[in-house]
């Protein structure tokens, strides 16, 4: 094992939103920072649904909204309950916005560049094999037969926590604790997108579809408009998918693209990219017992820090903010004499006090809610049947009560509906 002479204050593993932000903040505070990325360029292994909530990022990056690669501001929010060839949709439009669409490949790249501008050294094409320990403390990383040393290591390796598993800090991922996201990015001219979705030039649409979109597997579908493309994809709970799926997963996305309700949007587009990623689904089970060890902090997806709010995910802002807090925590630990376990405890404390952990606790039961068959299957069906009774008029017309009774007949009892409504309103 060859030890590299150059020593760093901090080594950050992974230049995704969490790692790049940690490196940015560390370098900005004057620490000698090494950012290691396994991809050829930062962002080349990044994938997400398509939307970022901006507020926390504005705390971190100066003029974020002016400089970052923002495609469109989400000003139209749609949630559709799909059943067969029909959908009942809630649409919310506002000129106010708190989120934007982008490619995570671009955003990660931008964030890593910000870190470099602050003086961090970014090495791409470097796959870290192990965390390096000296006298029981984390003090660097191992790449092939070489060791690079640092005072602290920030693990931002992402959802597949190979390094943390090797250290025995976490167990192997269980299919029931993660979801699988699969998406197609479909090229369309900006004007076409504007016309199809009723948007202005910089306006974006976020469209969540639930119900008959995932072959009865708990999950949902999403559509996001980018500048000159549309992201279309599905998210399914992996464990449930393994148990229930009866054809290839890509067909689910393809059927969505060809869905009678959606085909008109995509018929003139061509697929630019097909990508996939695992998503932390159950933070309470995924999160390591501690996010700090002697010389080590864990951030982003690796720490399970992703919020599933039922109708939306918050991943990028949570990841970035955890990286930001880890950097701040290192500054405090450094001031107290070094990155010992005792001194890094502050990271977990600061995280607990931030919106990150507060929100994760608040929505902790959502992932269990997602598995309720009635929610993603029965109710979309019920609502669309109800709507069809009211809207598809031939000779006779229905009264609301009549239509409702007809729609739920043999499907779900009134008492269940009331109980579910109560549960949803409490948990979401």
């Amino acid at each position, binding site marked *: 094992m060859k030890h590299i002479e150059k020593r760093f204050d901090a080594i950050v593993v992974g230049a995704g939103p969490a790692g790049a932000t940690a490196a940015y903040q560390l370098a900005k505070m004057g620490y000698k920072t090494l950012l290691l990325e396994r991809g050829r360029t930062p962002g080349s*292994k990044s994938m997400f649904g398509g939307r970022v909530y901006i507020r926390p990022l504005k705390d971190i990056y100066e003029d974020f909204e002016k400089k970052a690669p923002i495609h469109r501001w989400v000003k139209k929010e749609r949630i559709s309950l799909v059943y067969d060839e029909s959908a009942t949709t809630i649409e919310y439009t506002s000129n106010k916005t708190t989120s934007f669409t982008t490619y995570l490949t671009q955003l990660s790249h931008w964030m890593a560049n910000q870190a470099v501008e602050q003086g961090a050294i970014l090495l791409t094409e470097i796959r870290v094999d192990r965390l390096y320990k000296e006298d029981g403390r984390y003090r660097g990383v191992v790449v092939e037969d070489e060791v690079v040393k640092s005072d602290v290591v920030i693990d931002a390796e992402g959802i*597949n926590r190979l390094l943390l598993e090797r250290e025995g800090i976490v167990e*192997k991922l269980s299919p029931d604790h993660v979801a699988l996201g699969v998406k197609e*990015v479909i090229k369309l001219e900006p004007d076409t997108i504007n016309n199809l979705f009723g948007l202005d030039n910089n306006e974006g649409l976020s469209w969540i579809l639930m119900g008959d979109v995932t072959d009865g597997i708990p999950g949902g579908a999403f559509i996001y408009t980018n500048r000159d493309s549309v992201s279309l994809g599905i998210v399914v709970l*992996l464990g449930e998918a393994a148990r229930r799926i009866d054809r290839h997963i890509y067909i689910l996305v393809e059927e969505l693209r060809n869905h009678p309700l959606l085909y008109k949007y995509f018929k003139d587009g061509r697929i630019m990219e*097909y990508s*996939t990623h695992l998503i932390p689904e159950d933070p309470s089970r995924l999160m390591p017992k501690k996010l700090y060890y002697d010389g080590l902090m864990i951030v982003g997806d690796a720490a399970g820090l992703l919020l599933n709010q039922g109708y939306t995910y918050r991943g990028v802002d949570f990841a970035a903010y955890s990286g930001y807090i880890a950097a701040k925590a290192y500054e405090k630990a450094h001031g107290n004499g070094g990155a010992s376990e005792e001194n890094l405890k502050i990271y977990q404390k600061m995280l607990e006090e931030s919106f990150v952990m507060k929100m994760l606790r608040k929505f902790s039961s959502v992932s269990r809610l997602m598995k309720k068959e009635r929610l993603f299957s029965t109710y979309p069906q019920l609502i669309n049947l109800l709507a069809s009774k009211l809207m598809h008029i031939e000779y006779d017309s229905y009264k609301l009560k009549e239509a409702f009774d007809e729609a739920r007949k043999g499907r779900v009892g009134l008492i269940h509906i009331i109980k579910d409504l109560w549960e949803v309103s409490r948990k979401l």
Partner: protein
Amino acid sequence: MTTETEVKKRKISRIEDILNNDVWDVDYEPHIIVDYSKCRECEWKPCIRLCPAECYTMVGGEVLFSYEGCLECGTCRVICPEKAVKWEYPKSGRGIHFRFS
């Protein structure tokens, strides 16, 4: 409105054609090794349907894995009920290169 002819034109693309839009710098060594002897014991084989890149296929009644088109998501590693998948990321910047995700 979607016209009748357009309804007929709708079609599910082949996975090869969809994947063809992606970019890889394929490594000369596989980053994933599958122990086929364990696959033979496995009746369930969730990898066949769940690997989004269809890296796992059935050929002559046996699982065949090819790493070249891997999107590095980790699904196979997580769902394999037989722990037959030895899974690493590719080295030296090789593997999938996302651009628009």
